[in-house]
């Protein structure tokens, strides 16, 4: 597999898994606006995954659906940050904000790529992600505004910080640290990044759920 399809799959897997995790709030978010927001964000992320899988599929002579659902659980390249299942609001917001911040840094590099297909899709994705970032920022502002919100949010960021570092390559991690520390107004501890390629137990659970229909109807389900 080329470096190009390896990169496309890593990002597509991030977006697919995060989209799936975000969709777990559909119907049970703390209030209706967030039900709508997280469902929309999930839809966007899964759309991004599809577009990236399609680019990779052309090169690998397969289809987006096969890449999304027919690989073995061990073959996914998503960062551990998006594998975690944390149905708790402060952690959901912390992951959302950390991921979007890391993703913005990654997309800025891809938008400047000399590969016009990658630059084009990255630029289109980034314009949608801008709204996710605004949504995340609104929540960071809200949580940091009260004592309890601040305490819960800071705990969540501390727990997820080593995972957030793992979303990016070595070279881009200092930029992430700078942005996150600046927004929080405090230093974050030196942490060993939880690297891409490591599989949390939740990955297999999510994979089981996500691929259930494909595995039960291998020749294709008809509705």
């Amino acid at each position, binding site marked *: 597999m080329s470096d190009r399809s390896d990169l496309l799959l890593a990002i597509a897997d991030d977006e697919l898994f995060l989209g799936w995790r975000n969709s777990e709030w559909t119907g049970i978010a703390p209030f209706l*606006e967030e039900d*709508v*927001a997280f*469902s*929309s*964000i999930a*839809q*966007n*992320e*899964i*759309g*991004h995954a*599809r*577009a990236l899988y*399609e*680019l990779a599929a052309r090169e690998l002579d397969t289809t987006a659906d096969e890449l999304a659902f027919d690989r073995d659980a061990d073959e996914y390249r998503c960062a551990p940050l998006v594998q975690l299942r944390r149905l708790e609001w402060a952690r959901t917001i912390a992951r959302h904000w950390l991921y979007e911040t890391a993703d913005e840094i990654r997309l800025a590099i891809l938008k400047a790529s000399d590969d*016009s*297909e990658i630059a*084009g*899709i990255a*630029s*289109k*994705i980034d*314009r*949608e992600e*801008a*709204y996710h970032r*605004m*949504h995340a*920022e*609104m929540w960071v502002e809200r949580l940091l505004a009260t004592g309890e919100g601040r305490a819960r949010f800071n705990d969540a960021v501390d727990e997820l910080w080593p995972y957030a570092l793992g979303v990016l390559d070595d070279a881009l991690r200092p930029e992430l640290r700078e942005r996150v520390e600046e927004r929080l107004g405090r230093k974050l501890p030196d942490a060993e990044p939880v690297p891409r390629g490591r599989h949390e137990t939740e990955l297999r659970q999510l994979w089981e759920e996500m691929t259930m229909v494909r595995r039960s109807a291998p020749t294709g389900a008809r509705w």
Partner: protein
Amino acid sequence: MTTDEVWSALAEIPDPEIPAISLVDLGVVKSVEIEGERVRIELTPTFIGCPALERMQAEMATAVEELGGEPEIDVVLDDSWSTDRITAEGREKLRAAGFAPPSPRAAGATTLLELQRGVFRCPYCGSADTTLENIFGPTPCRSIRYCNACRQPFEQFKTL
């Protein structure tokens, strides 16, 4: 069959999610080329995950077949669509249907401050005294705002 005829046929297809405007008004038709019987149309999607995309493709293909052509609808995944591609006529149709049209991109990407404090006019009464209720709405392309003057919630097309 001429390209003008194809464009006219496409201008009759309503957007699946906001039928008040056509696919041409929405700006998703990037190009139309004819070579003999073959009609190649480039479709540039609004939001990447838009579930209406397949339906748009199918309806464009049907429109071409009705003109006697062989359709080839290519979805381009570049950055060519933006809300600036919505035609002037399309913007007015949106407003008349109760959707506030997007602000132009000229001023650069929208910021959170602009969404919260910016001037967004109510499509019903025209008042600029409106507040952001939710960045997200019934489809990815819309936000929800509330008009303090006529006390009516309304959908605002996101600037993209």
